[in-house]
């Protein structure tokens, strides 16, 4: 089942830009894009995510979310049944009925996403048309958009990419005569956003906007004067959609760790014309705080060998941080998908000869992992306990997505996510 291909490109480049990538095909032990709903529905506080799918979809989201049952979650599934499969016209009528029922129940919802799934894609249920049809019906109180979180098209965090990309066409058009506006793109914890806002203000950048917004009416205007900065590495389609609206990406590494955060903020500052001295002054206190906190943990991780299974596309920036700031050795860095352009700055910073893999053949990868016996394995929930039972120490990858880890003041928290499993093992062994 595996298709192995070693691709070598451009050997002059530094870091890992020229590293070979092991491409594999086989069983993928990853979530599909529907999982993104778990954090997206918390981020946009008046949005509802309606998956149009099967019982499996409903079960997946519920299981991935553990049993964190909120008062009533702002997500649900319109479960397709046999009758819907028999006639598509009926399926559309059924979908309209379910949306009607849902919106009557939840009058506070301002933005409704119809989220496509594997079954809805396979039966070619046209959710774009459904969204347009329903939008007309419920305008102006509710806006209805659609995207696909299906496993046949998206892997885990690509669900957020698809969701944000679906919002780009409805972003208001910015004033063409206005000066450069900076937009930070990608879901960040509110606390992290607020920290970045404060740092930007200290540099005199008062109008930095964030996307996605916390409320449906908080959509930032965009246009050719927009320069956007990705806060998350998995936003390929969103980047493209923004570029189609004239916005341009500011190339930077991702704001993980001290180095990543500094370079990321610096890229924004340069666009805004902030002088070097002012930039340094604005970040000095936070960076120093972070450096001291990270330095304390370095002895626990230095020289330790880490293995990443593919999960969120955060693997490469995380590996870069762990290798460069904490002295960890990278055994293998797996990523579900490698977007060379959006990852170029990160790849350049990775240690040379890092073993990179893209896609997955989980059995082969487990063989490699068990053979290498790394000190720490970053992997999904399905693999963690079985690997622990093999005597390896693991870190659940999903926690790296659900925890605020970006920025200076989270750098130490990020380190702690990696030190804790090692400390725990030592403690229990003692």
């Amino acid at each position, binding site marked *: 089942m595996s298709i192995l291909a070693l691709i070598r490109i451009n050997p002059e480049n530094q870091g890992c830009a020229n590293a070979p990538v092991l491409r594999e095909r086989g069983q993928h032990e990853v979530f599909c894009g529907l999982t993104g709903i778990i954090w997206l529905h918390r981020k946009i506080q008046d949005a509802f995510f309606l998956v149009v799918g099967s019982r499996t979809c409903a079960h997946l989201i519920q299981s991935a979310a553990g049993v964190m049952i909120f008062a009533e979650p702002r997500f649900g599934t*319109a479960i397709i049944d046999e009758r819907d499969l028999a006639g598509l016209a009926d399926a559309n009528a059924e979908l309209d009925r379910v949306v009607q029922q849902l919106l009557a129940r939840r009058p506070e919802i301002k933005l409704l996403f119809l989220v496509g799934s594997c079954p809805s894609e396979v039966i070619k249920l046209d959710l774009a048309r459904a969204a347009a049809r329903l939008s007309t019906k419920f305008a102006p109180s509710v806006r209805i958009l659609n995207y696909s979180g299906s496993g046949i098209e998206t892997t885990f965090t690509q669900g957020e990419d698809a969701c944000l990309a679906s919002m780009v066409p409805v972003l208001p058009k910015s004033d063409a005569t206005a000066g450069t506006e900076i937009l930070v793109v990608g879901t960040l914890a509110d606390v992290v956003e607020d920290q970045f806002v404060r740092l930007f203000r200290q540099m005199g950048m008062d109008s930095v906007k964030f996307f996605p917004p916390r409320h449906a009416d908080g959509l930032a205007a965009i246009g050719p004067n927009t320069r956007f900065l990705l806060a998350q590495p998995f936003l390929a389609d969103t980047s493209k959609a923004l570029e189609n609206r004239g916005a341009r990406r500011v190339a930077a590494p991702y704001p993980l760790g001290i180095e990543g955060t500094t370079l990321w903020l610096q890229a924004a500052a340069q666009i805004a014309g902030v002088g070097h001295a002012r930039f340094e002054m604005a970040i000095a206190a936070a960076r120093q705080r972070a450096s001291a906190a990270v330095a304390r943990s370095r002895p626990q991780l230095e020289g330790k060998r880490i293995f990443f299974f593919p999960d969120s596309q955060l693997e490469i920036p995380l590996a870069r941080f762990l290798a460069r700031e904490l002295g960890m050795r990278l055994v293998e860095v797996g990523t579900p998908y490698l977007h060379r352009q959006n990852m170029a700055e990160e790849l350049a910073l990775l240690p040379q000869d890092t073993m990179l893999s893209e896609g997955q053949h989980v059995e082969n990868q487990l063989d490699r992992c068990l053979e290498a016996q790394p000190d720490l394995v970053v992997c999904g929930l399905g693999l963690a306990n079985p690997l622990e039972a093999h005597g390896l120490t693991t870190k659940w990858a999903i926690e790296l997505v659900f925890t605020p880890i970006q920025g200076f003041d989270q750098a130490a928290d990020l380190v702690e996510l990696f030190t804790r499993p090692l400390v725990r093992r030592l403690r229990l062994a003692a």
Partner: protein
Amino acid sequence: MQLTLWTYEGPPHVGAMRIATAMEGIHYVLHAPQGDTYADLLFTMIERLQKRPPVTYTTFQARDLGGDTAELFKNAARESFARFKPRAMLVGASCTAELIQDDPGGLAKALDLPIPVVALELPAYQRKENWGASETFYQLVRALAKPNPQPDRTGENTETKKPRCNILGPTALGFRHRDDVQEISTLLASMGVEINVVAPLGAAPEDIAQLSNADFNVVLYPEIANLTAQWLQRNCNQPFTKVVPIGVKATRAFIQEIATLAGLDADGALRGCDARASWYARSVDSTYLTNKRVFVFGDATHAVAAARVASEELGFTVVGIGTYSREFAREVREAAKAYGVDALITDDYLEVEARVAELQPELVLGTQMERHIAKRLGVPCAVISAPVHVQDFPARYSPQMGYEGANVLFDTWVHPLMMGLEEHLLGMFKGDAEFHEDAAPSHLGGAAMKEAAQATSEAIAQAAETSAQTMATHWGTDAENELKKIPFFVRGKARRNTERYAAEKGVALITVETLYDAKAHFGR
């Protein structure tokens, strides 16, 4: 299309996984898109299994759909046979693969593997998890068991020969299956019954082949094993048990049933054995449990059993019973009749929530879903059934069945309640800062906020019922104040009874007198 916020059961292929994961030497090749591997975490995280489920997913993607997904399946089956060396294979499709109609059974057959291959047809758009588990177990037994009209017991010494049974039904991810098997095995052994095979939990394909080599079958979980037991009865002449030994009385009836099937004397097994729970229930400190109003919801077997134990062994009053197992609706409806209530047959948790809010029970016995409903409504709750949660796999021994199971039920159901004397004191004295009417039971942390829960409860109850009748009446200030002196756990009911009484009597303004008139009218 059905709007679903939370589901009680997963899709049927998860049921198949529960069978495969419970067994040894089996591998399940599942034609499924990327993402369906989430189901692995149910076993590795919720049940904390140390091994991965024996499942290979083909992980097809959109770009494969135009190409050869069938080839993908064949490769996956071939590779997993070579890697895992199973002694029997299950093949099937998840919901999406069902739509692309690749026919995993036919494809696997073409591979001509040297092991039995069982093709599963689990219609994902009609059926659910328990059905999938039942069907998978049935197909596996049909394929592997050697039909044998008479157990082959020749050559055994007729003097020392013991009656022999199989235990059917326990799976991976089952609610306390692990401990129930242990409890019932011990009970059977103490009766002098030999256990031939426990299946699916811990069974290998070779064990399934040996199923016919027993005199009868013990069905612990009818949702999973009834279909198989019926087939074994027809083809191997094995009768099977109908009593599910949950609670002291059912355990005694079970012993009786086993004795009959095994040709043993039941008296010996019944004598001298009892659960501590029986005495605890009779002890005077339990008097306050009398007529506690309880709402029961779960899979059919556990719901019916819990209602019976609640009513007959703890002296509670069953005010509502329901199940999400539509396949067993009849059994639950019948049980409901005995309590004079209507059974709630639904898999929509919002309906369950509305019913709980409306009934204002003093205790909810339900699943993890009802635990959340009860938490929201401020009602004590104990979990009696799947769907499971990590907490349903306790480190300690904690069966539901047999005598020890009855002890576990007593402890887990009584623990969430306010203790008797505490309840009395609350009824007598109000408004102490630490010890007040809205405080949670003192042994559960006391200070828990109940006001919000009460508001939620009343809002849901009002939304659930048509409040037309209450519109004509309103509450006087004195009556409102008097109402607040009634402890939280009965206040909602008092309010609604009073309003109902006022409406019936055409009273426009509810006074303190109306409140007490209503109390006398409805009694308790």
